[in-house]
């Protein structure tokens, strides 16, 4: 669980968000408020609208109704790259890296949006261009150290194991200097050890880098251990919100998510 100061300000506010795809209500009047510094999880069965919500926040979908405010400004109609520049980064469920490029190059590429030099300077590689490159490499090295990727700098992403690729994916999102990180199923398909490592890294990211995290995850152990608050979606509708303990005991959640016979463990 994240350690946050008392009563932090709301960083991301989603109000009455609705989106339809040809008559299917992917999201229906969803509202939530994520506070600065917390780890906020969104859970729900397949097709509940979790990834759609992420796509709305990162600007890939534009919802038909409702608003999304990030640090006080409306981002609902912004383009994805603008939203990224504002400080919302995303680590994808299906690793979105350049597979043929090395780990280092992938992380440097993620820095592209913050490097400020033109084509001409880049061609001669002096002055501001060089300074910018060095600054970015320095920041990337911090991430490499943070995620213990030192031995993989020069390895092509395609040659890494799935668990490591996921870690690089997280690194790529971090390289964008986010204030808010959207993480989509970070531990899916991982073994126990990889899951533990990943959970540890998420906590460290939250604590050491002071980054708010919104997490979509099916692995209940991870959700229950890491989250400060949890929201449950079912068929595009929010059915519950609260601390992991409250959620685990909510009969509606148990019914929707796991069927009546099973219980969530805390």
């Amino acid at each position, binding site marked *: 669980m994240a*350690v946050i100061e008392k009563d932090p300000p709301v960083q991301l506010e989603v109000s009455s968000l609705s989106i339809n795809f040809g008559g299917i209500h992917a999201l229906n009047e969803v509202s939530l408020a994520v506070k600065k510094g917390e780890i906020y999880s969104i859970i729900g069965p397949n097709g509940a609208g979790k990834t759609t919500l992420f796509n709305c926040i990162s600007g890939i979908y534009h919802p038909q109704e409702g608003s999304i405010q990030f640090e006080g400004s409306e981002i609902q109609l912004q383009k994805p790259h603008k939203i990224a520049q504002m400080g919302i980064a995303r680590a994808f469920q299906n690793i979105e890296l350049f597979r043929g490029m090395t780990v280092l190059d992938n992380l440097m590429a993620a820095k592209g949006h913050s490097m400020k030099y033109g084509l001409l300077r880049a061609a001669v590689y002096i002055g501001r261009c060089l300074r910018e490159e060095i600054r970015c*490499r*320095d920041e990337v*090295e*911090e991430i*490499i*150290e*943070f995620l*213990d990727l*030192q*031995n993989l*700098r020069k390895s092509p992403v395609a040659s890494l194991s799935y668990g490591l690729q996921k870690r690089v994916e997280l690194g790529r999102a971090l390289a964008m200097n986010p204030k808010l990180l959207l993480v989509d199923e970070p531990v899916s398909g991982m073994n126990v050890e990889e899951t533990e490592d990943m959970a*540890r890294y998420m*906590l*460290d990211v939250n*604590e*050491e880098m002071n980054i708010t995290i919104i997490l979509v995850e099916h692995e209940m152990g991870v959700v229950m251990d890491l989250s400060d608050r949890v929201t449950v979606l079912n068929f595009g509708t929010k059915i519950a919100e609260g601390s992991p303990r409250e959620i685990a005991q909510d009969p509606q959640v148990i019914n929707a998510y796991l069927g009546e016979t099973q219980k969530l463990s805390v």
Partner: protein
Amino acid sequence: MEKPNTTYPKLLVEKARMYQNRVAMREKYKGIWQEISWNTYLEKVKNFSLGLAELGVQAGDHVSILGENCPEWVFADIAAQSLRGVSVGIYPTNSEEQVKYILDHSRSRFVVVGDQEQTDKVLAVKDSLPMLRNIIVIDMKGLRHYEDPMISSFSAVEERGRTADQENPDRFYKFVDQTEPQDEAFIIYTSGTTGHPKGCVIPHQNHIYNIHAINDIFQFTDNDSVVSYLPLCHILERGVSISIPLVIGYTVNFAESIDTVQQNIQEISPTFFAAVPRILEKLYSTIQIKIEDTTRFKRFMYHFWKPVGERVAQYRMAKEKIPLLWTILYWLGYLWSFRSLREKLGLLNCKMLMSGGAPIAPEILTFYHSLGVYAIEMWALTESCGGGTGPHHEVKAGAVGEPIRSVKLRLADDGEILIHSDSVFAGYYRDPEATREILRDGWLHTGDIGEIDEDGQLHIVDRKKDIIITSGGKNISPSEIENKMKCSPYIKEAIIIGDRMKYLTALIQIEYDNVGNWAQSNKIAYTTYKSLAQNSEVYELVKHEIEMVNETLARVETVKKFKILEKELDQDDEELTATQKVKRKVIAKRFQKEIEEMYA
């Protein structure tokens, strides 16, 4: 030879005065080798030392250090010694229980830990350690919200020391002046293949004395460089990374992380490389496997030039002049094959490679010689303060050389090697009984059986307690046979069994990577180590390897039956020591069923 009248803190002050801004250490950080000068080294030790004094460390206090190799490990070590404290190294791979045992037994009041993982171990057991007062953490990552009042950061302690130093700049030097050559410098807990680890108390003087003598063999200068990668709490790495640099003044490089050691060794290409047999065997078998996977031309070149390398190795080991023809051939071989192999191994600039810690198969050392790396085997104990034997002139396969100048050595009637107590340790900490047992009549009873040949070179037969006496009454040294087996790229560990039995048998642990590789290229499906170990074709493969070894052995020494272990030996399961030596007793007990089957 005179005993040196100095201590490690005094040596540091002296070296810093002499070398000033010359590089003492390098540490790779953010992908760049960052340099630490002798001045910074002294400064860091001074601040941390005064910081420790502020926390209440006094003469005679024990400060444990638990973490991976890094410059801060060294600073903490010398800082504790500067206050006439005693530093105690703990293996970072040790479990909570083992950490607790050492912290408790060594009566440590302070512990310096590397990172969160190690901190968690100490926190888990601190309630049963009433003596412990402070936990000082080097890397605070992930610890921001630990609220235990015992925890403080390394840099915070340094900062306290810095303030204290500004108030009284002479204080540190006064502390250093008070250190005496006979003082206890550090305690080394031997990994112990039997029972609990025992704490060997090492005084400054005897250790420095032995280092001076060992340098007859190493011939170090201050232009040498090493990479620190073995655990610093082991006497071998402690010598190479902390003590010898303080005497000689060469540069120590710290790897970026455990996973990058091989890469970092390649980058630095150290002039001296100390290793335990396990690592040299691993490198050797990796090369054997890689050669089979490479292009036909490279493979041809390797096999073509190999005999040339081996022939020249014979001359080199005997320190004879190499005939001109062979010199020319060798240089051609160097251009085509040896050079690139050395580069891959990170041995391009390596002038000397040393194997220690356990016996090694002569074949392995000969291989390194054939690449043009001067490879030697040395023998010493923690209890003898790292002083023992090493080849001063000729390198003989299977021999560990002559005693160094500081060591007086003789064989007991039963062949046990004895070392005169003049240059050895001060005893086991809090274990007078074990001390009396090993230090008798002024001689250290090493527990190793040896022979001295006509040239005065020592040959190690085996550990006294490991020697196998078959039911036929033959004495057999198991480690010699085991080492021959471990030369095979497919065998990682071999344990010979047969004490009071009719014939010898072996438990085999296969080298997972290499056998897996072999299985893939032979279209054998497998999922885990266990499924490989149970495979009948793998059994045939190992059988073939063992038959090859058997051909080189006398009849009584041949291994008649063997079993492949279905699990990998693990330190966590108490089957290996922290230095990866097998614990025979544990293994004999755990695999009793398998052993009985072989004698059924």
